[in-house]
């Protein structure tokens, strides 16, 4: 086994475990912590897939900004842990589980077809996934969506301010 395979397998196990814990935990804070662990494992998976820039951005943006925002809001609201683990009674929960298993089975039916000869990884050069190569694509071929991302962030910023701002008296 190569180092990459060991790393990827370990990260996969950590990712699945932490994902399960996100759903299983009652307390939102603990869930968020496991989600951070999940994001970290996925960052390692990105590394094994040759996406070093992606891995750094995953840590920086996802773990470092988005999840911090999550935790910040959880702390601000400080909701009491809910007594029930799931929203509905055992029957509905069981049915949902059955639905999930069905969905998973149909997904896997498609996915397993990749197990054949076609599911190999292309060999890529040293610069694959480097900051420069990703950046160059972003500013040439993907310039248009890149600009759109700017608009999207503007929308989100305006929206967050509009919704969360405390209203000053006499304001419209």
């Amino acid at each position, binding site marked *: 086994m190569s180092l990459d395979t060991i790393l990827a397998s370990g990260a996969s196990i950590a990712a699945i475990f932490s994902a399960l814990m996100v759903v299983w935990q009652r307390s939102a*804070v603990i869930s968020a*912590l496991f989600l951070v662990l999940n994001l970290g494992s996925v960052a390692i998976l990105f590394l094994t897939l040759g996406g070093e820039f992606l891995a*750094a951005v995953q840590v*920086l943006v996802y773990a470092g*900004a988005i999840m911090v925002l999550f935790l910040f809001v959880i*702390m601000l609201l400080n909701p009491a842990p809910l007594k029930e683990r799931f929203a509905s009674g055992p029957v509905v929960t069981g049915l949902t589980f059955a639905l999930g298993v069905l969905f998973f089975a149909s997904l896997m039916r498609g996915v397993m077809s990749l197990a054949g000869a076609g599911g190999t990884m292309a060999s890529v050069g040293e610069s694959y996934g480097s900051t420069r190569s990703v950046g160059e694509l972003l500013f040439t071929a993907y310039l248009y969506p890149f600009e759109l991302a700017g608009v999207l962030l503007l929308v989100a910023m305006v929206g967050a301010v509009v919704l969360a701002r405390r209203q000053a008296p006499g304001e419209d």
Partner: protein
Amino acid sequence: MDAAMLKEIGEIVVRMLIIFTAVFTGVGYMTLVERRVSAWMQDRLGPNRVGPQGLLQPLADGLKHLMKEDVTPPGAHRMVFILAPIMVLIPAVLSFAVIPIAGDAINLQDLGLPWDWQIKPFIADVSVGLLILLGLASLEVYGVVLAGWSSGSKYPAMGALRSTAQMISYELALGLAILPVVLTTGSLRLQTIAEAQAGTWFGFVPHWNVFIHPFGFLFLLISIFAENKRLPFDLPEAEPELVAGYHTEYSAMKFVMFYMTEYSAMIANAALMVTLFFGGWQVPGLVLPQPWMFLVQAGAFAAKTFFFLFLFVWVRWTLPRFRYDQLMNLGWKVLLELAFINLLVVAMLVAAGVM
């Protein structure tokens, strides 16, 4: 296990030993430096009894904390309470892994040691080193939030909320302040950035980024003060308001971890400033054979870093504290915009071919 692999592991271990020993010694003695300098500024003596000039004081402090009772408050969330100090310390220490302390690798045989090992001047050679540093800095927030939350008490919670808001806010300005350097250097690898600052203008002005990007440096300096929650921005731990902020409820070794985090983050940030803006390990015009080159460069790096550490202490005991709204206004309404304008100007100059 064959010899080659053994050699590789050995090299890594030596690298880590060198850098982490330096860091932890630095952390220990920074506590002493802070107390002595503050005493000096306030016309006191400070701790000078344990060892000559109080040099053994950090050891004594460590021993004392080890033997103290470790209290977990009744309202605390036990697991997270224990996890928080670890989560805050690890990223702070990890950030040293990508900072280069000298130019070229050194062979242990040059030092008169029997092993033919090449010791690189950094632990990990990462092409996105700067991003990793920023990422680790943002991960430090978790420990803070969790410490405040898990203590199950009001003051830590308030302190943690303040810290988080402050750290998130100033992270943006910090990133924007650094970007001009990346723009002119064209790399996120710290060693490349340091190497790019070799040489001098007119034979005596070193080719350091601080002379190219003075504003960037200024903004970075201010953001770092805020990131580290040092005076004049130590609102999260403002004693008169919040006892000790997010780590109010911590005692013994867990408290030491927070304390160590504060100082190692300080050292890391000072080293970052040196690497980005003050030529890193560069000593202009110096050419020496190995191993002297390595040692002098490492020494120069340490000296430059210490200068900034001293600045941190100096400022702490000189300036009064801001109000919290002033702090937020400065971050969001002044620093962010200025840093952005600075970046825009540099970008235009680069595009125009001036830089």
